């Protein structure tokens, strides 16, 4: 038979494709995909979504804060381990009540235009953040400062803010109530300074805008929406010698599979929190690759129960649901990437924190409670509307609980998926029985977890209001002694979990991939990065 001349190349190409498909040669042995360090010390980061903007004081989101921490710095900063460290302030002290704080600023702290960072810059920035017409979504972060809430509500002038600059290097801050943890709060971007030389209220304007003047370890080089944000090392940062990276590039990749593809192809060095699919994360964890980093997060996944609606207005029905919630199975089969089942609201990873003991019970106890409430075998209970937003594992959790509660209690659930704004609106209107929720705290303090269910807190959509609970939190705020404060908070949490307006399910975890040639990045529960000490070993070779 005569052979066609084009057969050979076509067959070769097909073989090549098959080889590629089989995965041979698609990476460095022992690692996930290709591992080739970049030629210069540049860190390429898959950062999830673009930040809403570059103004550090205007937004309240992890993405915006991650960028803010590149370009700006507060009185305090975070280390790579998530601990606080001196930032613009080299030292600080508090009065005996922990109500008035004095910060001593470094004289060498500079803006990226070379001018000095002064104590007055912080006051300028905080007043601007609280200005109602500026409409910062993060203004609440400053409410702990005396007078801040009233200013933000338009009921008082900016000069009433409890902060004054004694000199260029001494800043005194007075709080609404004692808070020994206030210095750590100054490491949050809404309390960062913005340069007073920028006189316009909205000094940033993209595209075509100029780079903001910052005081952080990096300065902005370029930002193209949905494409990349490039920052280069600042020449004026007070601790510039500790910054080893020349550039950081954030790629806003919203498709999680694309993030993994880019990591495999060696085009990304670090995938930040929540940027890879849960099933892939599980796979990498199972394979035990050294590039996989799991860290718990100070966040709790829980269900909000609408206590204003029948039958969930009866705590016995709520308790019955809680007792039959198999968190272990949800954690293992739906999440399984470091997430831990939890019956408590406050994460047990907080230093020195011990969770309260909550009475348990089995399905029989739950059925008994239901019968006591007048619903034997779930009879008389209408289908409960369970709302959640599409995308992510929320649908799987709803379906799992639908099966469990139907089987064990005879209670029917109507899983109702919708997009996030619709869920948020229905939640606020109270048009649900059960709603999925996640609470991520800004600072490692137990009260941060409990405030969310305080009466009047906008995040409390359960309709549950307990004066004793509120009083315990208020007392804890005024208690300086940590042991006593924690005891009060433990009592508050016990009360919350006994009355069951919420069903905690999981303590959250993050799985991140970091190439072996990147050093100094340590995923931590606050999901923060201390840029000093982060480096890319450009001469890295896989060990023989």
């Amino acid at each position, binding site marked *: 038979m005569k052979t066609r001349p084009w057969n050979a190349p076509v067959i070769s190409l097909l073989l*090549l*494709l098959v*080889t*590629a*498909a089989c*995965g041979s*040669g*698609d990476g460095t042995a022992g690692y996930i995909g*290709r591992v080739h360090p970049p030629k210069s010390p540049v860190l390429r980061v898959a950062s999830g979504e673009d930040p*809403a*903007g*570059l*103004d550090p004081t*205007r937004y*309240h*989101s992890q993405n915006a804060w991650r960028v803010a921490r590149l370009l700006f710095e507060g009185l305090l900063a975070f280390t790579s381990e998530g601990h606080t460290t001196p930032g613009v302030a080299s030292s600080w002290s508090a009065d005996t009540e922990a109500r008035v704080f004095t910060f001593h600023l470094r004289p060498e702290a500079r803006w990226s235009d070379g001018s000095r960072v002064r104590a007055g810059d912080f006051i300028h920035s905080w007043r601007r953040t609280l200005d*109602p*017409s*500026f*409409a*910062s*979504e993060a*203004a*609440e972060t400053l*409410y702990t400062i005396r007078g801040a*809430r009233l200013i*933000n*509500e*338009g009921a008082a002038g900016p000069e009433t803010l409890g902060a004054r600059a004694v000199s260029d290097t001494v800043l005194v801050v007075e709080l609404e109530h004692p808070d020994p943890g206030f210095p750590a709060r100054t490491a949050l971007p809404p309390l960062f300074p913005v340069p007073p030389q920028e006189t316009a209220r*909205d000094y*940033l*304007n*993209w595209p075509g*805008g100029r780079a903001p003047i910052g005081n952080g370890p990096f300065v902005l080089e370029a930002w*193209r*929406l*949905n*494409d*990349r944000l490039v920052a280069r090392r600042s020449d004026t940062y007070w601790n510039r010698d500790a910054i080893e990276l020349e550039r950081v590039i954030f*790629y*806003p*990749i*919203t*498709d999680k*599979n*694309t993030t993994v*593809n*880019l990591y*495999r192809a060696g*085009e990304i060095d670090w995938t930040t929190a929540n940027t890879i699919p849960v099933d892939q994360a599980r796979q990498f964890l199972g394979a035990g690759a050294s590039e996989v980093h799991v860290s718990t997060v100070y966040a709790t996944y829980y269900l909000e129960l609408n206590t204003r609606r029948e039958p969930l207005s009866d705590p016995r029905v709520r308790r019955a649901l809680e007792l039959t919630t198999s968190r272990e199975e949800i954690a293992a089969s739906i999440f399984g990437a470091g997430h831990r089942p939890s019956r408590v609201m406050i994460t047990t990873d907080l230093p020195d924190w011990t969770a309260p003991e909550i009475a348990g019970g089995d399905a029989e106890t739950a059925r008994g409670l239901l019968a006591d409430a007048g619903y034997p075998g779930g009879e008389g209970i209408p289908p409960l509307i369970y709302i959640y937003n599409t995308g992510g594992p929320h649908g799987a959790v709803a379906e799992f609980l639908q099966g469990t509660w139907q089987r064990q209690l005879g209670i029917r659930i109507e899983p109702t998926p919708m*997009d*996030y*704004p*619709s*869920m*948020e*609106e229905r939640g606020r209107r109270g048009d649900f029985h059960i709603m999925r929720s*996640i609470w991520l705290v800004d600072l490692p303090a137990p009260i941060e977890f409990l405030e969310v269910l305080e009466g009047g807190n*906008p*995040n409390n959509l359960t309709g549950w209001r307990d004066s004793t609970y509120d009083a315990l939190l208020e007392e804890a705020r005024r208690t300086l002694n940590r042991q006593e404060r924690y005891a009060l908070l433990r009592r508050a949490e016990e009360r919350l979990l006994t009355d069951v307006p919420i069903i905690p399910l999981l303590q959250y975890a993050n799985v991140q991939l970091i190439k072996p040639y990147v050093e100094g990045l340590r995923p931590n529960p606050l999901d923060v990065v201390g840029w000093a000490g982060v480096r890319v070993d450009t001469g890295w070779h896989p060990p023989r």
Partner: protein
Amino acid sequence: MAPPAVTDNTGEERAPLLPFSPLLRRRLLTALPTLFVIVTLTFILTRAAPGGPFGKEREMPEAVRENIEHRYGLDRPVYEQYLRFWGNLLIGSLGPSFQQPERSAFGVLIEGLGPSLIVGLSALLVALILGIGGGTLAVLRPASTPVVSIAALVALAVPVFVLGPMLVRFVAIGLGLLPAALWGSPSHVVLPALTLGIPVGGALARFWRAVLAESIELPECIAARARGLGEWQLVWRHAARKSLPLLLNYIGPMLAGLVTGSVVVEKIFSIPGMGRCFIDSALARDYPVVIGATLIYAFILLVVHTLVDLSHLRLDPRLRKEHTEWTEADRALRRKRRAAARAAKQSRGT
């Protein structure tokens, strides 16, 4: 002064198509109300969608929410928001984006339009090469018809969200020949263009094969073949030329679809295009960006369809004749109206 008449290569005198073509004038007259209706409908639908633009995992205190809503005028009655929106639009602004408050809504979209156009036009090129090439091959070499048909069917049947990841797996990760995603160099365009262009190319190949096969049976083609014209010549000089208007009809909507429908590809390859902005802003209730994107998409569709109609006038002598007559009649009518107006003015003067 009326533009001079021009003569085309057939020696036929015809009116110039631009810039005074009544077709264009009519298109413009219908385009404006169309755009008005589209914008109004989009405004109503976005406001009717449940939820608002500032829903966050962490709820804001009432005062903070009120401050934000006041800043964007969302605390005003809807009719006032609508009037203010038109006021802004008439001076060429949509206001700031709600999700990107440091950018204007048009700025967000214009930034995304470039990559979307590049991907859409590159995909069109891929589709044309595959479609025209495949269809023509099937007609020229009947033995290859089953192969072309099956290949076209497979290309058509594989969804973009399967084809894209497959290409990434094989070509980018497996062979390391091209980037797996992202944007910035010509090499970043190849895989998205192939992903978007291959299914369209499959459909085009089937269409082009059918059209050519029909044209080749026309009497003039049979006569040309009888004169001894080779198959290649026959297809290109006669059948293809005959089929060109049909192809244009097909390509017009196809091009608009490629430019406006690259959302999935933009997500898979993380391209900073307009489709991605559109979907993200719709999900986040970023009203100004949603309305702006709808407006731009509608504009693109209107332009593409007008271009297709103009091309038809160039290609089809029958239409051209009709159009010329129409143009002449239109001019005559205008002359008559002007003369009547002059006469009326004079009679008023006397």
